[in-house]
């Protein structure tokens, strides 16, 4: 196994130092024998990024993404671990399916894949899946979600929150009150009224988050709120945390950067669920991420084949790519704006998501003996996003043609380079 010496690397944006990656672990000493030297002058080292919310589409929709292509994209984005959402075909609601996804990730070898288990059988919202069997499987599932659908039945949600306490699991809720969002196409506001697109009101997200926070507090369990998108949601989570409740939350890169104004193009590349919100909401989720109300950034990477976006808005699928652009969007919206330093980015994109997912070998500080999972990032360059250059099988990036700052130079998974010089190793 190659030993790497990273010369003059800036760990979390600190003073330049040398790091050695040997036998799968980090050491801060220096060595010169038989090593491959990487001049990391000007590069920032972050612990390998951990995504709590990725759609890899396999099994079932291998036309959109596979575990292999999705983990290629993840590695290129600086991730060493991703959580694969359960809305596959078949649904990841049994030990068999989660073990299959977990094994595919191991075989691909570019990024650790931690399957998310479905909360309910078939995501149907009717009865709880065998959460214990998934937890006890080789995939060791700790995060459970019906993402794409909301566990809207309050009693079922209560039971799920209670049940996962037995194995320290967490319910990651897609907060969307279904009756308030029937046929919903975009953020409900002035623009939805003008465009004649059915509105997805903020209250439909906020009502579920408020209910779930109360339920989590009542039964003493862990709740994770997926893709928080509104100012009101941030405020509810802030209050829940102030009361000491065990609630965590995520925000996507696209909700940090893009607004609902883009829907005026009727180009469904901007169609996503929850929808892009107002500029005031964008400000609020940035502030929430900065002050820790929102714990993490999660991509909600959602590949879709071209034909599902090359159509009229209402016919198009919800979702956008995110793995390869996440760190750049966070740099633009949080670092370059002064809201977060690189240590703050490490917390929100590596340490905290690893804690929520109960991962032991990811999200560790780059100290002696830590697993050598890390990313080298050059924040001084910028690039124009070209959708044809993505490693994902799909092309539905909302950033095509946009200039974004920063570039992933290298990614290491347990000391092995998955990305070198910005390319798959």
């Amino acid at each position, binding site marked *: 196994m190659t030993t790497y010496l990273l010369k003059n690397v800036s760990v979390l944006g600190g003073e330049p130092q040398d790091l050695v990656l040997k036998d799968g672990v980090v050491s801060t000493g220096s060595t010169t024998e038989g090593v491959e030297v990487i001049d990391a002058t000007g590069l920032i080292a972050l612990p390998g990024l951990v995504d709590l919310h990725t759609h890899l589409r396999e099994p079932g929709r291998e036309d959109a993404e596979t575990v292999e292509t999705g983990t290629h994209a993840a590695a290129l984005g600086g991730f060493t671990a991703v959580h694969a959402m359960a809305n596959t075909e078949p649904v990841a609601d049994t030990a068999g399916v989660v073990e299959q996804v977990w094994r595919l990730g191991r075989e691909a070898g570019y990024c650790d894949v931690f399957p998310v288990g479905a909360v309910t059988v078939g995501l149907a919202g009717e009865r709880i899946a065998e959460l214990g069997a998934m937890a006890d499987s080789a995939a060791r599932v700790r995060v459970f979600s019906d993402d794409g659908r909301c566990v809207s039945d309050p009693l079922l949600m209560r039971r799920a929150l209670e049940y996962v306490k037995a194995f320290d699991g967490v319910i990651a809720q897609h907060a969307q009150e279904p009756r308030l969002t029937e046929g919903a*196409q975009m953020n*409900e*506001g*002035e*623009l*939805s*009224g*003008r*465009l*004649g*697109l*059915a*509105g997805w*009101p903020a209250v439909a997200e906020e009502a579920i988050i408020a209910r779930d926070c109360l339920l989590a507090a009542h039964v003493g369990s862990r709740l994770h709120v997926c893709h928080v998108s509104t100012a009101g949601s941030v405020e509810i989570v802030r209050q829940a945390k102030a009361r000491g409740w065990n609630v965590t939350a995520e925000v996507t890169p696209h909700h940090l950067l893009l607004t609902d104004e883009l829907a005026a*193009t*009727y*180009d469904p590349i901007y169609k996503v669920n929850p929808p892009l919100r107002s500029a005031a909401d964008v400000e609020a989720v940035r502030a929430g991420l900065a002050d820790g109300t929102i714990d993490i950034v999660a991509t909600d990477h959602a590949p879709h084949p071209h*034909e599902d976006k*090359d*159509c*009229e*808005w*209402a*016919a198009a699928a919800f979702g956008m790519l995110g793995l390869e652009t996440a760190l750049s969007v966070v740099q633009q919206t949080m670092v370059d704006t002064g809201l977060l330093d690189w240590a703050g980015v490490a917390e929100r994109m590596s340490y905290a998501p690893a804690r929520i997912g109960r991962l032991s070998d990811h999200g560790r500080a780059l100290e002696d003996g830590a697993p050598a999972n890390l990313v080298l990032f050059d924040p001084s360059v910028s690039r124009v996003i070209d959708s044809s250059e993505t490693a994902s099988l799909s092309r539905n990036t909302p950033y095509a043609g946009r200039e974004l700052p920063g570039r992933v130079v290298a990614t290491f998974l347990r000391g092995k380079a998955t990305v070198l010089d910005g390319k798959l190793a």
Partner: protein
Amino acid sequence: MKRHLLSAADLTREDAELVLQTADEMRSLADRPIKKLPALRGRTVVNLFFEDSTRTRISFEAAAKRLSADVINFSAKGSSLSKGESLKDTALTLEAMGADAVVIRHGASGAPHRLAHSGWVRSSVVNAGDGTHEHPTQALLDAFTMWRHLGPRNGGTLDGQRIAIVGDVLHSRVARSNALLLQTLGAEVTLVSPPTLFPVGVETWGVETSYDLDAVIPKADAVMMLRVQRERMNGGFFPTAREYSRRYGLDGRRMATLQDHTIVMHPGPMVRGMEITADVADSQRSVIVEQVTNGVAVRMAVLYLLLGGSEPAGSLAEPVETPGDHS
């Protein structure tokens, strides 16, 4: 004018007035024995209808034929929403057939916008109604009808004329296009609806809004009733059809409170007994049938101006001289 007509907001006041004046010339054609102009001879207009709308389709068809265009009616059974052929593939097919203009009716808001801006076709796109978004030629024919009736007593314009639009604004493409166009033409628009049937953000539209029909109509110069689908009841927008009719329907009692010159309009198809009673629909004030006639003239004007050029139609307004017409 722009190359496409997707929204009433695409029209400046100058554009809109040009359409009305051109429509006026086109309308006079209807009184001639030969109702046909050569203006679009050799051009192809495709009526691409993803939703059933016999009224609008035959109106566009008549308009294109009176301008001597070749007309292809393409009734797409089921859009990509129902897993039929995609909008894109349909568009590419039409492009391959050499359409100069595509008149599109689609159930999805923004479908005409996608057709015009996705690089699928090079032709002009005319929105003939998209989802709950817009229906700009309906707004033009409504404005034309108002202009003919109210203009002569108002200096030839709609400036300051009070227009009440009543009904299901939330789901109405007609209301959206009318609100935009009538403001462009200087009219004062009041939308009347139960609170459940106003869109979020309507307060930013620059129009007045009211929940009280009786308070609005005595001041109106035109009252436009919108179709209200009974199915909206199931969505909980109002409790019963009877209650809706009592509060927001135009009946003989309410009609008696109108000013003498006030006209009553409806874009059709009417639900008699729901938003409008038969005695009102068939009254002297009703211009509902005339709206249909004007629809053809306005659509002729739109197709002419989009495809034929911007010079006044009068210079071209000579009947077609072909052997067939003399036989």
